[in-house]
């Protein structure tokens, strides 16, 4: 490949280089501590890991993309904006749990909803559910890396979490001026 200044692949970016640098650093450390045989051992581990992790992640990606297609963003906004109080928090927790999108989609939704008057409790519940319960993350990451039983335990124990966060956020925001948000000047 010696074509003059080819357009850089969007995939070989900072993230990839950062991870490669960490791998290199860890590799040097391992060779220093364990000797050169560490390289062969590590490559062996990577192959056996990749063999069962990668197919699962690929399937997780398929599920996530299809879900994004089937559950349009407008529907998410519609369900989130309508209710306040405990009902709003429960709905937001559910929507956040099933919403498959990445942060580039989730945060603009929250901003738009906040500006149009959604309750802070519902917004916090939504973000917490999306981040901490998230079915999408469960399928793409937890299941491949940690196995089905751990994924189930993690899922069950995180279910009450967004509801608690939403209730606390409402309480804080109603009780103390410091926690009240001026959406017009939020950024």
């Amino acid at each position, binding site marked *: 490949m010696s074509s003059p200044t080819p357009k850089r692949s969007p995939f070989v970016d900072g993230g990839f280089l950062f991870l490669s640098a960490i791998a290199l650093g860890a590799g040097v450390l391992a060779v220093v501590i364990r000797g050169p045989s560490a390289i062969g051992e590590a490559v062996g581990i990577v192959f056996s890991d990749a063999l069962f992790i990668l197919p699962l992640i690929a399937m997780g990606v398929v599920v996530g993309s299809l879900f994004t297609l089937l559950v349009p963003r407008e529907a998410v906004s519609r369900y989130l904006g309508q209710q306040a109080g405990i009902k709003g928090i429960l709905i937001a927790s559910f929507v956040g749990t099933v919403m498959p999108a990445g942060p580039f989609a989730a945060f603009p939704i929250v901003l738009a909803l906040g500006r149009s008057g959604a309750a802070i409790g519902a917004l916090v519940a939504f973000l917490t559910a999306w981040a901490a319960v998230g079915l999408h993350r469960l399928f793409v990451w937890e299941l491949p890396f940690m196995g089905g039983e751990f994924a189930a335990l993690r899922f*069950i124990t995180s279910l009450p979490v967004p509801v608690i966060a939403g209730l606390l956020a409402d309480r804080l925001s109603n009780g103390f001026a410091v926690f009240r948000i001026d959406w017009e000047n939020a950024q």
Partner: protein
Amino acid sequence: MTMSLLIIATIAALLGVIAILRKPEGIPGALVDMRNQMLMFGLRLPPALLAAAFLSLIVPAEYVVPYIGAESGWQGVLIASLFGAFIPGGPILTFPMALVLWRAGAGEAQMVALLASWSVFAVHRVISYELPFLGPRFVLVRLSSSWILPLVSGFLALVLLLIHPF
């Protein structure tokens, strides 16, 4: 593991059929989305897994088990929650590293707390998305109302494991 693959492949197939029936016009876009994500993960995961493999060779169990092993109980849940709050990366780095701790003998409830803490605090996400989009006040409200959640998940896991060992 093959069981997990079977289940998720079935879900994928079902969603695929629904998508073909209800939104055939959206399929090409979804395929492009899948390809992009798979390329991204396919490129980034090998170095992340390699880093984790090297680390798993040099992180000794005696550094992990006493602090966050299954026997470490609620103190272990506390330590894991604290530790998880400072993991500064996205899932591509975090899960291979979690695997290192897991294999070195970390307990299940403690891992639940660690991952819950990472997902609630998510330093990288706060800096690159939450602050710029929603502002410092929102971050303050969210963190004030959710800092306790990793402990809730961790303790819940301890109790569940007592009742029914997974």
